[in-house]
């Protein structure tokens, strides 16, 4: 498969967009089915066999709805916000090493770029919230900003620990380093950083907060702020926000798979390939959904205290510990 350079990248990007769209649609189905199972009810079963056509029906419904710009809203920013939200998800996934050669962009600073794109998400939600001139949306925009800043730092510190353990920022090299049976994965490399599972947990919590999911869904708190930043969006505007949420979850989970669980490496050394990557990815995505339907929402200042008082000290401590271990080893 050796297409000349620009076409190979183009094919990858189109493939990625299809992957994100398919993911967004069918993760909604998985979420509603899982929520149903947890709550002892069947979930969607009417549309298609076991509700499989439900996402298609939702998509068609959203497409047929009119995209209304509320009066007095800042029309340009209002239309720009959905684009700004979906872009980082796509670009982040472009850097992700799905398989040995299944990699859109092999960039030496892969990890740094993923985080750079990740922070655009905050800007987009804020622009969306501010531009829709709705009091609930403005409150939610303010919350998004402070929440994501508070959780960017521990995430970066945890990623820094990883960078020291792996020695490189190039994602495919990080995965290559984790070759061999599963105890070679970074998660179990206690020789380099004895508190690696703790770093994994911190990274997982911060990823939840970054994507405004589950216990940290202050931005889109449906029982307080009606629908948060995208209250005023209808039709495909809301659809894109919805898709972006799932794209960000997939981005976060795939980043964790690459950094901690050895990307496309197989647990027993042989037959590594993209299927292992997808298996680990969807296990993590399932856990994100599982967390959402178990816990209530945290309170806003507890959320910030949790980050400033617990996550940041712990991640700093693991960073210094790893540095010390590297020095000693």
């Amino acid at each position, binding site marked *: 498969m050796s297409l000349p350079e620009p076409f190979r990248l183009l094919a990858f990007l189109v493939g990625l967009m299809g992957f994100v769209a398919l993911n967004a649609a069918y993760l909604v189905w998985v979420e509603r089915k899982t929520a149903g199972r947890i709550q*002892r009810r069947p979930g969607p079963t009417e549309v298609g066999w076991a509700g499989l056509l439900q996402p298609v029906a939702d998509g068609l419904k959203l497409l047929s709805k009119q995209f209304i710009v509320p009066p007095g809203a800042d029309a340009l920013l209002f239309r720009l916000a959905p684009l700004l939200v979906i872009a980082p998800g796509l670009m982040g996934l472009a850097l992700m090493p799905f398989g040995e050669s299944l990699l859109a962009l092999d960039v030496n600073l892969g990890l740094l770029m993923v985080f750079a794109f990740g922070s655009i998400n905050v800007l987009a939600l804020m622009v969306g919230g501010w531009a829709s001139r709705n009091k609930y949306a403005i409150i939610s925009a303010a919350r998004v900003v402070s929440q994501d800043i508070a959780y960017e730092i521990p995430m970066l510190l945890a990623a820094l620990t990883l960078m020291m353990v792996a020695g490189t920022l190039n994602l495919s090299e990080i995965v290559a380093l984790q070759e061999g049976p599963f105890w070679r994965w970074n998660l179990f490399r206690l020789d380099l950083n004895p508190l690696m599972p703790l770093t994994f947990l911190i990274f997982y919590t911060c990823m939840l907060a970054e994507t405004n999911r589950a216990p940290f869904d202050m931005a889109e708190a449906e029982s307080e702020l009606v629908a948060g930043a995208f209250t005023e969006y209808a039709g495909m505007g809301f659809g894109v926000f919805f898709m972006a949420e799932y794209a960000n979850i997939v981005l976060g989970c795939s980043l964790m798979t690459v950094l901690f669980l050895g990307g496309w490496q197989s647990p027993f050394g042989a037959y590594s390939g993209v299927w292992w990557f997808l298996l680990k990815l969807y296990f993590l995505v399932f856990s994100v959904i*599982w967390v959402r339907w*178990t816990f209530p929402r945290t309170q806003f200042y507890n959320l910030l205290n949790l980050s400033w008082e617990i996550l940041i000290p712990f991640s700093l401590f693991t960073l210094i510990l790893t540095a010390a271990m590297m020095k000693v080893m």
Partner: protein
Amino acid sequence: MKNRLKEIASGLGSLVTGMRLTLAQFFKKDVTVQYPHQALEMPPRFRGHIELVLDEDTGRAACIACKLCEKACPSECIAVEGVKPEGGGKKMVTEYQLDFTRCSLCAACVEACKSEAIRFSREYNLAGRSKEDFHLDLLRRLEEQSKEHAARTPPADAGEAQP
């Protein structure tokens, strides 16, 4: 500092138990009834809208149009008209209108009726396009049911005429 760590540890513990419980529920059978495909059986004392009782021997409604139910109803939803047959005997009901949009199913009429002529039906599939759909003419309904009932007389139906 010590109890803060203990608090964090117990906090994590509670989160893990929460996750364990929801996973346990995940694998259990679901408890809901899929309404359009499966329907629940209504208990004998279920209160649907009232319906007239068929008097077996005369083959007509048992109601003697004494209007006790009309007086007892708090929201005036019953309108009864009756006529005295020339040959004497009990009055016959000629018209029994029930305005089900105002009825609050309080059983005042059923208890007020001395001749056991009305009872609660077990109807609950009551969708209608306009309010007039719920101005029910119980007499006509009774005639339709008895016609239907007569049409399929051979199977001994348990007296429960389902319209």
